[in-house]
């Protein structure tokens, strides 16, 4: 269906880990320029939901429909297209920030310019070794990595954690620019976040 705009829709997603049922029939949808804010206490399944949406984890049941301009993408295609910021995302300690971005830009077959521009805005020196970064600096690198290939869909798990005030302000600006350009975002956070733009809300706490 060419011409159908980018959208993400998931219905009745269920995921168990052994006997523990983490996702129990979760549904939601995001349209271009839209954002879905997923909240809930620790262990409520926010990160699991984002991993399922990214294609990193297979849901036990339910459907995920993600469509870009050229058609619907399955899990393996989605995995290579989305931009992800997550606490468990790590980079090579032996490589500098610039080398990390260059390596992943070669894998994604894109110029590293976009990543370096984000780094500059977030104020992270490109010549620092990955192993010497503070937690706030690692979060900056995650943002630069997630936006490296200009993805249409951003999946952000606790996207502002460890940021100082300036870092959080810049990250919020980057998110706003992404949405203004017609991108989609799913943001997971333990508590609700205030955004300048409207966001659909999905509470996994109940």
């Amino acid at each position, binding site marked *: 269906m060419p011409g159908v705009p980018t959208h993400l829709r998931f219905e009745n997603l269920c995921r168990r880990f052994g006997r523990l049922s983490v996702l129990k029939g979760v549904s939601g949808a995001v349209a271009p320029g839209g954002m879905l804010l997923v909240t809930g206490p620790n262990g409520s399944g926010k990160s699991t939901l984002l991993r399922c949406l990214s294609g990193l984890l297979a849901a036990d049941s339910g459907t995920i429909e993600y469509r870009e301009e050229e058609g619907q993408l399955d899990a393996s295609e989605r*995995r290579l297209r989305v931009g992800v910021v997550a606490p468990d995302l790590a980079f090579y300690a*032996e490589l500098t920030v610039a080398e990390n971005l260059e390596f992943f830009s070669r894998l994604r077959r894109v110029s590293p310019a976009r990543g370096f521009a984000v780094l500059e805005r977030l104020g992270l020196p490109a010549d620092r070794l990955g192993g010497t970064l503070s937690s706030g600096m690692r979060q900056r690198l995650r943002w630069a*990595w997630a936006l490296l290939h200009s993805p249409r869909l951003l999946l952000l798990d606790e996207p502002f954690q460890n940021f100082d005030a300036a870092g959080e302000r810049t990250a919020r600006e980057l998110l706003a620019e992404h949405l203004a350009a017609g991108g989609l975002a799913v943001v997971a956070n333990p508590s609700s976040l205030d955004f300048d733009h409207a966001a659909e809300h999905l509470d996994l706490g109940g």
Partner: protein
Amino acid sequence: MRRNTSTWGAEVAAVFAKEWRCEFRTRYSLNTLALFACTTLVVVSFSLGPLGVSRSQGTALLPVLLWIILLFSVAAGLPRAFVQEEETHTATALRLAATPSALFCGKLLYGLTLVFALEALVTPVYVAMTSFNVESPGLLIAVLAAGGYGLAVGSTLVAAIIAQARSKGTLFSVLAFPVLLPLLVLTVEVTRCAASGSAPDVALPQLLLYDAVVTVAGLMLFPVVWNP
């Protein structure tokens, strides 16, 4: 979303270059391989004594010892190819950016260069230290190439399978035994032929067939074991 051959090749090259860049900075595998190779070489040399072994004994014994040295050295360094990605949590970023087959081939290429470098250093020293008489040097080079490739691809495949398991060390031994045993039997047989100057008959084609089968199995299995 399909990636064409040139982009796939660029991905393989990127993974290969990253592996060597990280290796040159940590020298984990290089040091481990060098340590195991030196230790086993010295042990074998001392145990054979200054007179070495007779020519007939050498043809039977020395090929086995050579491949034991190579296997031990490789087994100490290569199983970490994917384990380290899981332990340092870089595997998630790789899953989100790399085509599985390109990642497998990039890691295999890195392992292959490591094994070939090891063979290039160990074999001449071993031949000199043990007075290993090789009647057919060309066949020895061929078996080192085919056997080295088999060691690299077999180890990379097993390393990928064990990466997400809890008991990685034990599982590597259990899985490596059936995967690498046929390889070692064949490489020892062909190396004996190289030493005695006799024709390898079916052993060399079987070795090449083993390499092809494990490569195809690796390319087919890797996306399944790497992704959910």
